[in-house]
């Protein structure tokens, strides 16, 4: 049988959208019978996450004409994934999600090439991410979204007038679900709000005060968290609690039951124990399908221009009817992540070590364990050890010298941000200006202006 993957009849339906002109399309849409093939050849898409959204995304993208797809996920398949992650079967439990998902989609859609990456998103270097034309997120964690967002925004460059350079924009399409609800959004760094611009859309989870758990428990969840957060440590000195170990979970459940009985509280079940301890978010196939489809469609529209683009945030709520709302959020112009960079003024004598210390105390940044890169050159790397050793000697030199005496430029730093209790990996773009050597411009007016 002839190779069906390249038979144009197969793609009859997508081609109608890509080959025919229309009046409600993107600005740069150039309809052509070969547009789908061109996209297949040229566009490289990264799917982050191979779970509920990721499985759907890979299928949707493969059937939208994309041929070069990578997928990254550090997780392995669990039984509780099978009610929605349709690429996995019971016999796949324990295997890499990314690898199994890639294999299954390639088997069914010939001609598509999916490269799996069974690792953490932080394990990949920036060049890895820079190779993609667009990044699609199917994640359930705020931290992971924030990280990828900072990576993609890190590629963004601004011109002298603080206008984003279009060719450096790396679009992100992000989806998320919880039960019957979900969101899809398009992030064009520098043009539409990035994840950090609208971080308030994801309020942090409320935790129970420890004194409630210890002294005045009232609900089943209080008893469970007491067993999990207080009693476990008291009994198992130093042995860390592992939420994936059924014996640990059983122990917490039994302790929670005892405590509930003591206080006359009802409602502790094993299922609730798991839910509270692991912070389980309910998830169903239909919502994942809807949100992923919206994301895949936006990806196709951004890459091909075949229609207007979502501008820029869609919420879906299926709890009462089918309610969709699109909100056009606006950018934070001084966003630490997608803006032109935090302005930092330094003395010409500031050494790299002093600079790194300064980042820790900088109230906006609070960035510890910083690695510093200037124009692709590693000035100081915290890890791996070999790089650390190679770059350690730079610490004593003046930063101005390490930057080849350029008085004003952008520097990239990566490290951990946040306060003591919660630190997350992050990347930051900084605009460093050296006092007194500014090129003809007095530095007086930069002190207060931002």
């Amino acid at each position: 049988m002839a190779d069906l993957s390249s038979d144009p009849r197969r793609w009859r339906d997508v081609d109608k959208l890509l080959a025919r002109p229309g009046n409600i399309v993107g600005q740069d849409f150039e309809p052509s019978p070969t547009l789908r093939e061109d996209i297949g050849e040229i566009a490289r898409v990264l799917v982050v996450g191979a779970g509920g959204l990721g499985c759907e995304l890979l299928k949707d993208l493969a059937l939208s004409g994309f041929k070069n797809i990578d997928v990254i996920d550090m997780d392995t398949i669990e039984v509780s994934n099978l009610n929605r992650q349709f690429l996995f079967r019971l016999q796949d439990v324990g295997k890499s999600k990314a690898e199994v998902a890639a294999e299954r989609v390639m088997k069914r859609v010939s001609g598509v090439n999916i490269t799996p990456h069974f690792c953490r998103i932080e394990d990949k270097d920036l060049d890895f991410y820079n190779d993609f034309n667009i990044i699609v997120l199917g994640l359930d964690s705020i931290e992971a979204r924030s990280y990828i967002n900072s990576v993609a925004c890190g590629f963004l460059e601004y011109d002298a007038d603080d206008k984003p350079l279009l060719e450096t924009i790396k679009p992100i399409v992000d989806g998320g679900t919880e039960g019957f609800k979900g969101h899809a959004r398009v992030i064009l760094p520098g043009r539409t709000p990035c994840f950090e611009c609208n971080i308030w859309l994801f309020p942090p989870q409320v935790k129970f005060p420890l004194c409630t758990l210890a002294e005045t428990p009232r609900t089943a969840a209080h008893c469970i968290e007491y067993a999990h957060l207080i009693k476990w440590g008291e009994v198992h000195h130093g042995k860390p609690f592992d939420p994936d170990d059924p014996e640990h979970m059983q122990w917490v459940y039994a302790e929670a039951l005892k405590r509930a009985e003591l206080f006359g509280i009802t409602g502790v079940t094993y299922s609730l124990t798991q839910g509270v301890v692991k912070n389980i978010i309910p998830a169903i196939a239909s919502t994942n399908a809807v949100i992923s489809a919206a994301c895949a469609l936006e990806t196709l529209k951004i890459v091909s221009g075949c229609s207007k683009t979502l501008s820029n945030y869609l919420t879906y709520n299926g709890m009462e009817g089918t309610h969709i709302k699109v909100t056009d959020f606006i950018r934070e112009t001084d966003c630490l992540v997608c803006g032109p960079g935090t302005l930092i003024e330094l003395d010409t004598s500031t050494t790299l070590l002093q600079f790194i210390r300064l980042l820790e105390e900088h109230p906006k940044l609070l960035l510890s364990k910083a690695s510093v890169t200037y124009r692709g050159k590693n000035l100081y790397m915290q890890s791996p050890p070999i790089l650390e050793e190679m770059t350690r000697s730079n610490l004593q030199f003046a930063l101005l010298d390490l930057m080849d005496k350029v008085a004003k430029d952008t520097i990239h730093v990566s490290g951990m941000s946040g306060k003591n209790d919660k630190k997350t990996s992050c990347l930051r773009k900084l605009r460093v200006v050296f006092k007194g050597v500014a090129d003809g411009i007095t530095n007086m007016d930069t002190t207060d202006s931002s």
Partner: protein
Amino acid sequence: MTVAETKKTKYDRQLRIWGEQGQSALENANICLLNCGPTGSEALKNLVLGGIGSITVVDGSKVEIYDLGNNFLLDEDSLGQSKAKCVCSFLQELNDAVKAKFVEEAPEHLIEKNPSFFAEFTLVIATQLMETSLVKLDKICRQANVMLVVARSYGLTGMVRISMKEHTVIESKPDHFLDDLRLHHPWPELIEFAKTVDLSVTDPVIHKHTPYIVILINMADKWAKEHSGCLPSTRQEKKDFKDLIKAHMLSMDEENYKEALEASFKVSISRGISSELLQIINDTAVEVDSKSPDFWVLVAALKEFIENEGDGEPPLEGSIPDMTSSTESYITLQKIYQAKAESDCIKMEQRVKGILKRIGRDPDGISKAYVKSFCKNARKLSICRYRNIEDEFTSPCLPELQKCLNDEDYSFAVGFYILLRAVDRFAANYNRLPGIFDGGLNEEISRLKPIAVGILNELGLNGPTLSEDLITEMCRYGGAELHAVAAFVGGVASQEVIKLVTKQFVPLKGTFMFNGIDQKSQVLVL
């Protein structure tokens, strides 16, 4: 892991949403899918993953090469075979607990020749069906009391709608709903308990662990005494009431008092039921007879309850939210609310028995569990009624249609609604959808336009027009079923099926119009 444990773990993430009861409703459902293109296949895929009981896939076509470009459930080995058979076998592979069957026959043919075929199903999902067949199917399903969900994908648009006489929901599970604390209308046992607590206690530990329910009941009592029996109602009074609460704080960081301030409006809620509930208890279906569904028997009982022992209020829900409190006070309060809820429920049961007797049914014919669930959700009942499709097509709600046509956000959605009907008429005239062939698109546009305008005129809409650009889009789509659009539309359809089958949450009340251009999809209630 045993088989039962594996099943429980597999469905864990959805059991947390619809519970064992919802799950068993799904497992007892028998679903029929008409046409298994990507829209239908994706809808069914989501249901099969969730453990739907039985499925029957109906499609008369063979797999062709273009099916491989938009349907993941088909692969190269399927070419030339029955589409229904291939889709069915892939679905079976997804979940072996599901009983999967297929019928290799065109749905239009079944609708025409064998209407009794549909009677055995819980619900029919009709996809990619043209208007004439759809109208016939709607009549068949209504006659046989089978729920109908309609889904269609077309280029960058699509639609999902439900059709059935009536769908009643007890467990509507709204996202945000005011708790049922009755601070505006407390009952004697609650007042009595509140009075045993001294708000002026000087021990700071006891003071900051007094639950806000107790604080507010005592404060409201105090207020009423000073205001000739009235509760705060004007803006100024509500502010003064808050000041009264504040005056009792020992320090500004007492969480329980902060909660009391935040909830202080609850003492001022007017007595009685919401207008939505009033409409339900005044519905004509409340005049029950021996053929009335259990739901309406319960509503009849609810009406009696509200008018009698309820003193204008529905049965108490019986649960309280977590609040800053000592364990003891909280548990005591919990028990007081539970006891009242139970006693309300017993009174409702008696009324239900009385009504059943009166209409000539077994007085024990409705289970206690059903009555209990009804009482717990009495404030949140929801009723959806759907016009039959033919009626809507011949006489839609014109003011609504007019309003949508003139509304910028709705104009694409309603335009597509008209155009989806127009392409069916086009197909009836020309024996093909507009724009299925490359070339000659301008001619197609000039053929489709008068048809669309004709529909508007027939409906009596002579003023507003459809955007030319949208008509052009429709011809550009050429009947394409894009996978991403099909996955979206199919996904929405399966979501609605789940809500209908589990009888939980509130289903779609009109026609969901997918707008894939800027994603501003809308629901049209016509």
